[in-house]
């Protein structure tokens, strides 16, 4: 008996619709976020992540609405990221029904924001989202902002060490080189981050083959986030859980309630 590996579908939301592109460009519409969240929850998603990729002032109202409507019918943890820059943003999202929020650019600009959020809402609400790619930095990985469009001039491992020392609840490690490519998680990156961090680690970016999930776990990931493979129906959540179970990992199986 032990903790199950979490499978987390990520819904990239722009103007109230789910979109997912290749390396964050060429967005291709894939559905209604509330409906998709409910379907994923019924198919065994262990959490749902919404990433607001427009995250403009007008987009924020739409995200709050999506969140409210999702929280009315989906009773599993909901994480929201994208454009969060103040503790007040966090407060609004939590009130609308988010359980956790993920921050990226704002934390890099102002690391004090991490402490401010953690002090006010607890470490459990804060997911540090790290959009990293291979580069000629100390560790060979650098942090990017603005959906991978800009370099933050920060070594990824240095950044994770400094951010976790302020007390984040989880790390969402997204490979910008692999994002949307379905060519596999960046396994070396996962391994290197695992070596320096004892915070739960969610692998993201590049899941394509069913073996990619077990490979990421073998490198030390605690949870697996994916978007394209689910949205385009390449794999169902149950198939991935079956594969993980076959490889000896614990998963949460569909509830047997009312089926006895």
């Amino acid at each position, binding site marked *: 008996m032990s903790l199950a590996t979490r499978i987390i579908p990520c819904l990239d939301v722009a103007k109230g619709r789910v979109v997912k592109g290749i390396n964050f460009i060429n967005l291709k519409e894939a559905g209604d976020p509330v409906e998709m969240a409910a379907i994923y929850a019924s198919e065994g998603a262990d959490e749902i992540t919404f990433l607001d990729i427009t995250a403009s002032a007008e987009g924020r109202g739409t995200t709050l609405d999506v969140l409210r409507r999702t929280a009315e019918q989906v*009773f*599993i943890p909901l994480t929201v990221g994208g454009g969060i820059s103040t503790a007040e943003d966090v407060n609004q999202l939590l009130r609308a029904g988010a359980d956790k929020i993920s921050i990226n650019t704002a934390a890099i600009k102002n690391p004090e924001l991490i402490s401010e959020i953690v002090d006010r*809402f*607890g470490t*459990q609400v804060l997911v540090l989202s790290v959009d990293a790619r291979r580069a000629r930095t100390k560790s060979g990985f650098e942090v990017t902002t603005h959906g991978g469009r800009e370099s933050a001039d920060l070594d990824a491992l240095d950044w994770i060490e400094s951010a976790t020392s302020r007390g984040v*609840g989880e790390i969402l490690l997204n490979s910008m080189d692999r994002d949307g490519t379905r060519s596999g998680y960046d396994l070396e990156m996962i391994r290197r981050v695992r070596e320096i961090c004892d915070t*739960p680690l969610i692998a993201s970016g590049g899941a394509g083959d069913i073996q990619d999930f077990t490979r990421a776990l073998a490198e030390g990931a605690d949870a697996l986030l994916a978007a394209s493979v689910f949205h385009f129906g390449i794999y169902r959540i149950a198939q991935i859980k079956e594969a993980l179970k076959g490889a000896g990992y614990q998963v*949460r199986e569909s*509830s047997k309630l009312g089926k006895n």
Partner: protein
Amino acid sequence: MTKRNAIAILDYGSGNIRSAQRALERVGLDVEVTSDFERAFESTGLVVPGVGAFGSCMNQLRAVRGDDVIRARFNSHRPILGICVGMQVLFAGSDESKEEGLAILPNKVSKLNAPILPHIGWNEVTGVAPLELLKGINGERFYFVHSYATREVPGDARTGISNYGEDFIAALELGSLSAVQFHPEKSGDVGLQLLKNWADAL
């Protein structure tokens, strides 16, 4: 007048009140969110939610006399359900903070002995003795988010155990007092069933 079967959620500024409210309403219960002493005391069942740090939860609880209402209900055998930090505050204290707990239960809460913290995700709960809360729920997982937990409770309490690095108390029942370290309001259909079990037994 308080309606029969009315559930009150103690509002002391904890962030997850709405999820608890939505989940209880989903199973057909009449729910009131309140920080009023009388209303919280008179309700048929009182839910004490809680997320974040132990010390700030205790301070916020005291600010609305939540500590008094929980003790008063316990002493008059009125049902209470503590969730997550809402469970932890029932104990004498926590290694997380210098603030004292309610000391309804004698032991202290301490950090889990596990390599990766917080303990986040879906874990199993096994009952040593049959728990009302887990009636009809077998071999299911609940959603946890915490770094601290208790390992010891009074001998006459019924307990459910989980393991993360070590065994800890994930659920307990002692007379009219129920408490869970996990989040039933975030544990899907299984969590909703647990909340319904609690309310059905009131």
